[in-house]
């Protein structure tokens, strides 16, 4: 007779087998994810250079970072970039609800909304570059419709550029999150909707009282992913504005790239990346805390 809490031989074997199956993936994760993160974190506390002896400098890189105008500009822009999150999630939920209906040609719409997700960033950059150009499509349409009196500098005006880049990020993310919400919507039990119809609830009430609460776990996951994507905004910035005009689109991660890889100031780039990671973790924690199903304010 086995002791309570102890594993039988067959259970042990099964566990070992499970670990054996997990081992290759874990090994790869260790080599290419966990180790670089840990080593990178360590290097951010040193004056690492390929050509000099490495010294431990404690928090010097971080102190320098928070005294650095360029990084603070980047951090501010990265936090501003978070504005894209609620819009992306609301847009994605709306689209998912829309394409969840059995309408003619709905499959085509689902595919069309997903196209931006699979389009490479460089192509997206070229395309939106044409759209946002002073003499581009967007200004032309708005001028023709008499919505604006003169062309707007979507990418050359520091008051607009960050929002233009954010819009591209929103446009690219919409399809991805839509698919996730669509999958969640299609897995919701129909009995509750039917019961609500019998109780006389209208569409709006059913959406807010039944659909949205049941989507909460998906909203939580998508919101966290969206927050992380917003804080890590780099590609769109690189292809559209390279941080300009007047540093208006210079994000914290762009600073990390600029310092670490372009100017080979690796410790500073790593410190900046680490700060961005901490922001990601903090915001993800807040999302988990406030959006967790069953949370009461």
């Amino acid at each position, binding site marked *: 007779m086995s002791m309570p809490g102890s594993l039988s031989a067959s259970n042990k074997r099964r566990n070992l087998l499970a670990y054996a199956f997990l081992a290759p993936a874990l090994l790869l994760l260790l080599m290419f994810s966990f180790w670089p993160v840990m080593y990178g974190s360590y290097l951010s506390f*040193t*004056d690492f250079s*390929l*050509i000099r002896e490495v010294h431990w*400098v404690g928090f*010097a*890189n971080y102190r*320098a970072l928070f*005294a*650095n*105008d*360029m990084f603070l500009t980047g951090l501010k822009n990265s936090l501003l970039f978070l504005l894209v999150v609620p819009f992306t999630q609301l847009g994605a939920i709306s689209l998912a609800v829309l394409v969840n209906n059995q309408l003619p040609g709905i499959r085509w719409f689902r595919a069309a909304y997903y196209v931006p997700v699979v389009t490479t960033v460089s192509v997206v950059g070229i395309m939106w570059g044409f759209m946002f*150009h*002073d003499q581009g499509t967007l200004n032309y349409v708005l001028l023709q419709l008499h919505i604006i009196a003169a062309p707007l*500098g979507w990418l*050359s005006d*520091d008051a607009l550029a960050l929002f233009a880049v954010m819009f591209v990020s929103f446009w690219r993310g919409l399809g991805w999150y839509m698919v996730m919400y669509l999958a969640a919507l299609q897995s919701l039990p129909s009995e509750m909707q039917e019961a609500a119809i019998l109780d006389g609830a209208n569409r709006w009430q059913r959406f807010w009282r039944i659909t949205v609460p049941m989507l909460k776990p998906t909203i939580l996951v998508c919101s966290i992913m969206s927050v992380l994507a917003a804080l890590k905004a780099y590609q769109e910035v690189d292809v559209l504005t*390279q*941080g*300009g*005009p*007047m*540093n208006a689109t*210079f994000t914290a991660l762009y600073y990390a790239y*600029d310092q670490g*890889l*372009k*100017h*080979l*100031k690796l*410790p*500073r780039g790593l410190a900046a990346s680490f700060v961005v990671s901490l922001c990601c973790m903090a915001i993800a924690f807040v999302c988990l805390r406030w959006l967790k199903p069953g949370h009461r304010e």
Partner: protein
Amino acid sequence: MVTKLRVFLSVLLLSFGLHDNAFAVQKIEFWTMSLKPKFIPYFQELVKNYETQHPGIKLEWVDFPWDILQLKLITAIAAGTPPALVNLSVPWAEEMARDGLLEPVDALLAAPGATNDYTDAALADLRFNGKVYGFPHYSNVNVIAYNRKILAAAGIFQAPRSMDELLTQAVMISLKTGKPGYAPALGKIDGFFMQQGLDLMRDGKAVFNSPAHVTLVKKLAATYKAGGFLKDKLFAEDNFPAVVDAYLGGRLGVMVSAPTAIKRIQTDAPEIYAQTGIFPVPPGPTGINDGGWMFHFAIPKGVKKKDIPEVAAFARYLTSDTNQLAFASMAGVMPTTKQALANSYFKKILPNAGASEQALAVAANSMNSARSLYVSGIDDYDELRRFLVKAVEAGVTGRRDIQEALDEAVAIWNRKLQGVKLP
């Protein structure tokens, strides 16, 4: 038996040693920057010729894209396996020489008993702290390519004699034709200031908020307001693709660029090329011609001392008059040796010469005073430059008072320059 074995082994080792000395082949690895695939035949031919003339040398040519070369080089130096020669730009060489990563080559510029033929301007570009750090390879100097139709419509038939005149012409073009006249690279405003004889720093302090600087930015702002500038990527770090596109499309009156770009017009837009004329760029008060962006071959630290004479001999061959002339005529760049520059290829403008040939001749005349203008010796300079560009952009586009914007940037610079050096 043991003695016999010892003798046998000694003879064997000796023979290996002799063999090693008698048939040693020295490998010279040289790196270039973004020259593949266009120049593969040129370098293959060059390598073959040199190896034929020097049976004891085995050459290995490696080409890296420009954006990864620096990282590759530093990694190779750190690993103790540097290339024997590496293709660098002047600012990179200055930075690396400052870090002690390059060998000075003053004594190696010419073969023993001979004198070197590199231009004074090229050698001056590569002289840091009194020592020369490379073998000049090729350079460039800007010329003004102008659209005859657009300039004629604006009533302009003469080359500008100063920057002020060029700005005035840009405004005239805009007023008369509705097209922008000029597209300066204001993302490189630091070089622009320097070419106009305005220092960025003095005694370790930023001084670009002086009345002279403010006056120049005011002139730029006035030109911008009058529509004289092409607004596409005006303040970008690299506005060249936008400028070329505009010129090729007949949307820009004047394009200031190296002769290489004129060749591109010839290929991409023959009708625009047919109506392109060439002016020299007016040198600023400094007398320095715009656009001397020189590339050279440097010897990295870590190359074995005993190998250096052979490496230098190959570097001299790579950058010889004959080879520079061949490379320059193929690439549309300017050579950096006096003899190659004096060649009739650059001097003679035939009656039916196109803009490309005219550009080469005009550029060759300016080469002796072409210098690479950049700020050296400042850590994190690129970051400081961004704040300068931001201030100039705010001033030029009328979003902020020019004096205020420059004052603020100067304060940021000085705070950083006097601050603790970052790791």
